[in-house]
């Protein structure tokens, strides 16, 4: 198994971070070279690049970074799905670390060899044992950088939720929307993913798609009070205050909520109070109670 067509950016001094990131970004369709990434990740005072800054730079270029579990099976499942994996290695010893970024592009199970774009070598081969030791000494750090509609093969609902939420702060909800939708398709009943998809649909201006997602959310988790609040607000925007009241009522009665959530729910309830108690129009969504 080898992704032959992953590009190669030979590293110049200290620049394995920008070179490795340029490799995965280019493969996911971003036209950028290692020189341009230096400004985003290289830290002169440390003569290197920090892991978090590689993830941040990926977001700035429209690719969602996902941390990958630290085991060989996760690496091979990503390779099989066509995702080269950014890894950190320690090529030195614990007392005298030599931190290095490379990109895993293949694994030959017969020879038990890993293939990497690394340093100045386009096709570096490392024995399974040697690679694992160097990776283990860097706490098995690994990540993939993917366009918003694609998810890592080895991800879990929890890691995807965190990665998409972090990406959304930087890239905006409409850009990340395909990620939420892909996640909802893969894991249909997951409340947090439905909540993310619903909010992103609404941010993208798709009110009816958003209301469908909120309904699915409240079926799968009737006690999702943030979901109830946001759905009530959407129903109000759709001109359906009576449905909004029905959806919000359990949230107003809930006890022990986080203060921030409680305040937002109170604000929504306050807005609902300004509307007369009348039945909604015929075409309002029949909200689940």
């Amino acid at each position, binding site marked *: 198994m080898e992704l032959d067509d992953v590009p190669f950016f030979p590293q110049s001094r*200290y620049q394995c971070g920008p070179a490795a990131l340029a490799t995965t970004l280019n493969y996911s369709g971003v036209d950028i070279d290692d020189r341009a990434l230096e400004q985003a990740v290289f830290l002169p005072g440390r003569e290197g690049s920090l892991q978090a*800054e590689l993830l941040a730079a990926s977001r*700035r270029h429209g690719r969602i970074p996902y941390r990958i579990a630290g085991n060989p099976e996760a690496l091979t499942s990503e390779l099989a799905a066509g995702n080269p994996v950014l890894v*950190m290695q320690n090529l030195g010893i614990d007392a005298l670390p030599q931190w290095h970024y490379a990109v895993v592009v293949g694994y030959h199970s017969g020879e038990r060899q890993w293939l990497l774009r690394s340093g100045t070598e386009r096709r570096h081969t490392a024995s399974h044992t040697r690679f694992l030791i160097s990776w283990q000494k860097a706490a098995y750090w690994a990540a993939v950088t993917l366009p918003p509609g694609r998810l890592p093969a080895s991800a879990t609902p929890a890691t995807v939720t965190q990665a998409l939420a972090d990406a959304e*702060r930087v890239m905006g909800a409409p850009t990340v929307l395909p990620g939420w939708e892909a996640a909802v398709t893969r894991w249909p009943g997951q409340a947090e993913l439905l909540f993310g998809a619903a909010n992103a649909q609404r941010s993208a201006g798709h009110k009816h798609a958003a209301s469908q997602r909120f309904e699915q959310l409240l079926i799968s988790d009737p006690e999702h009070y943030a979901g109830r609040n946001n759905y009530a607000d959407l129903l109000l925007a759709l001109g359906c205050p009576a449905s909004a009241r029905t959806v919000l009522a359990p949230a107003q009665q809930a006890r022990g909520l986080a203060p921030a959530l409680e305040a*937002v729910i109170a*604000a929504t309830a306050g807005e609902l109070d300004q509307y007369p108690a009348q039945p909604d129009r015929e075409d309002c969504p029949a909200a689940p109670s």
Partner: protein
Amino acid sequence: MITARILMLFQALILVCATTATSTQAAVISTPDYVSETSRDGRLAQINAVLARDEVRQQLVAMGVSHEDAMARVAALSPAELQQLGQRMEQLPAGGDILGLIGAVFVVLLILELVGVTNIFTAV
């Protein structure tokens, strides 16, 4: 008469704008904020994010990054990443120079040589 009507229309417009603005902003909770709120660490990181952002930006500048780049770089970090960098930027692993490995090995050998553990260089 006409000016009074225009004035009323204008006031009504302002009222509509003001209410729609509050209904879309104040009354919903965003996904990132919600996700942060669901764990204790996330909540702390979220609370400290503003301070941490400034702290990390200053540290980046002190380590040789331009003001402009530092601003753009901190803007793309998550609250948890900001917190991590704010506390440990000096110690976190920074992937860099593999050529340096050769230099490091040389220094170790030289020290071992100088303290008399090895005699690679004198033997040559």
